[in-house]
């Protein structure tokens, strides 16, 4: 039973990370219909910027994280305005954003070389014991913080004017424009949110035990892609629920799958779940069935 709970908690922690990463994809997809693979560059840039402020400038951890999130959000907005907005169709936009991630990762790791840079997070290897279950201090902090972040996001989405314009644009861009919603503004806000979430995800990824800020972080952003298929490409709720499901399933796969299945099976579990979902419910858990009108 304790094993079960232990795995469940670490699965939820992993799921929170997936939810944050997936939400970044979903926000942009909802606003502009683009699958924004530049999310990978937000993740790696966020991680390394946080390192630059903590490790090189000596700022406190949480201040650095906030600054990194803000800077990456600005980067995302500029990227949208000056690069991605110039391409007219989704086909090119996908490739352009992919190209950005490809080019950004080696540039960033070239600026801050090293296989594993210590982010100096406040948790070290502390473990909290709650009723027989050991929860790492990292998980214990990150789960509520992620939950707060997601809650703030949903409140913003549901109750603010900007949130309303985001939803309106997702529902019907032309009608929203006719009502005076600036789509440029909506795109900008969406990319800013995606950038901030990506940077936060990058920081969280860098605090795993034995991890650190390291090359290859951008690829971890793509781990959220199965999540958005599971949850539905344009559903924020789906991103959160899908993230939690995949996180928990993956952690249980680590424990339960026999060794004879080979090394690295748990790493491909999200993709296998994705294939199953595409077979039985291709639109995802919270996706709407596609209706097309000319």
């Amino acid at each position, binding site marked *: 039973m304790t094993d079960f709970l232990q795995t469940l908690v670490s699965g939820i922690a992993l799921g929170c990370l997936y939810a944050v990463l997936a939400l970044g994809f979903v926000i942009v997809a909802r606003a502009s219909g683009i699958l924004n693979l530049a999310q990978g560059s937000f993740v790696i840039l966020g991680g390394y910027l946080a390192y630059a402020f903590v490790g090189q400038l000596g700022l406190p951890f949480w201040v650095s994280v906030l600054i990194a999130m803000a800077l990456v959000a600005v980067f995302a907005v500029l990227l949208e305005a000056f690069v991605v907005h110039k391409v007219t169709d989704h086909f090119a936009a996908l490739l352009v954003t992919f*190209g950005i*991630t490809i080019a950004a990762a080696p540039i960033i790791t070239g600026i801050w070389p090293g296989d594993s840079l210590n982010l100096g997070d406040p948790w070290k290897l502390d473990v909290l014991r709650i009723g027989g279950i050991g929860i790492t201090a990292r998980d214990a902090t990150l789960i509520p913080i992620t939950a707060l972040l997601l809650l703030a996001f949903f409140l913003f989405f549901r109750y603010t004017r900007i949130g309303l314009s985001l939803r309106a644009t997702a529902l019907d861009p032309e009608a929203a424009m006719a009502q005076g919603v600036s789509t440029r503004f909506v795109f900008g806000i969406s990319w800013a949110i995606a950038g901030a979430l990506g940077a936060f995800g990058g920081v969280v990824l860098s605090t795993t035990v034995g991890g650190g800020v390291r090359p290859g972080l951008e690829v971890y952003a793509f781990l959220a892609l199965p999540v958005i298929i599971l949850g539905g490409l344009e559903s924020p709720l789906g991103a959160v629920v899908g993230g939690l499901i995949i996180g928990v399933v993956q952690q249980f796969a680590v424990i339960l799958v026999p060794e004879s299945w080979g*090394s690295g*099976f748990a790493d491909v579990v*999200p*993709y296998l779940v994705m294939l199953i979902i*595409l077979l039985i419910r291709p639109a995802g858990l919270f996706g709407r069935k596609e209706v097309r009108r000319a």
Partner: protein
Amino acid sequence: MTATITETDLSRNTQARAPRLFGTWTSRLLALLFVVAIFAIPLNIADSYVLTVLATAAVAAIAATGLNVLTGYAGQISLGHAFFVGAGAFAGQVLGGQLGLPFLLWLPLAALFAGALGALIAPFALRLRGPYLAIVSLGLVYIGIYAARNLTPLTGGLNGTVVTAPVSIGPLDFAALQIGPFLLTREQGMFILCWLMLALVLLITANIVRSRSGRAMQAIRDHDLAAEVLGVRRLPAMMNAFVVSSVFAGLAGGLLGVLLQYIRPENFGLDLSIQYVAIIVIGGLASIWGPVLGALFIGLVPVLAIWLAAYLPFISRPGEQGGVSVSGFGLIVYGILIVLFLLFRRGGLISFFRRPGRARPASASAAPAAASEPASGNTTTHNSTKEGPSS
């Protein structure tokens, strides 16, 4: 069935004919020159490094041509092309090396194996419109590496495997080719083999894209709803494109195996997929010669990076710490060029050889692009419909 009837009625009324394979004398001449060069270049260049770089470019061009059918002509983005290349490479070694099948049997079988995998995956990825194929194919890369690492008896697991598959057709052994009195080195033979296969693949592709199913793909790409109204079924057309692209990838994989002579699961990761995407975008989407040009260009980038490392402080030489590694430099170049070409030059490098604003490059000075005659008409429509506002 009604769709078939409408189609024949239409074609009778409008006299639509398939575009010709070699429309102009220029294209015929260039095709001839290409074939002559395949033999002339290795006989006149003995430098094994140059020949290997060029042979690798030919193999990359074969795989990229496959991706171009899918991405350029059918408009579906795949980031998992390396998966099918890897499937072809390992299948080639199992069939040719472990089972000892002859070249003429193992290479087609390896290609068909990759094609069968493609047919298996396609229904997952192509059921819905949208970026699903990009996501699924990205997953395939990781699933493929996991599978290759753990199927140790077939793939050698983590350590990979030496490729011992034969490369001889009857008495013609490409590893030690004899033309008249000359005994060629392995590099020279492999150059001829790879470029001949590329010529074959280009010929097949040129024929596919002007065929009925090829035009169906392009119709769906340009406007799926309009195409479906005209009786083109979306899913079969897309599946055709996907299977063809996987077969070419498998073929390239088999050749890559015998070219490298040693393959590991890590060879077929995301970086290889990125290369193929870069090749077709930089070379020219939806053109026959674009991937060839792109592959030659991409083949030059690492050579250039090693050369530049001596002059530019921020590129680290192999084995050095800090700065941008040679492979990292390649990725930066690919990424930036993908963005720049898509923003400013959707036609890719090949479009520099074409005359702007002309549907048919009729004049003799139209350079290699003229050989891709069957594609050029369609490419122009593709550009004009999609590029519109930005150009």
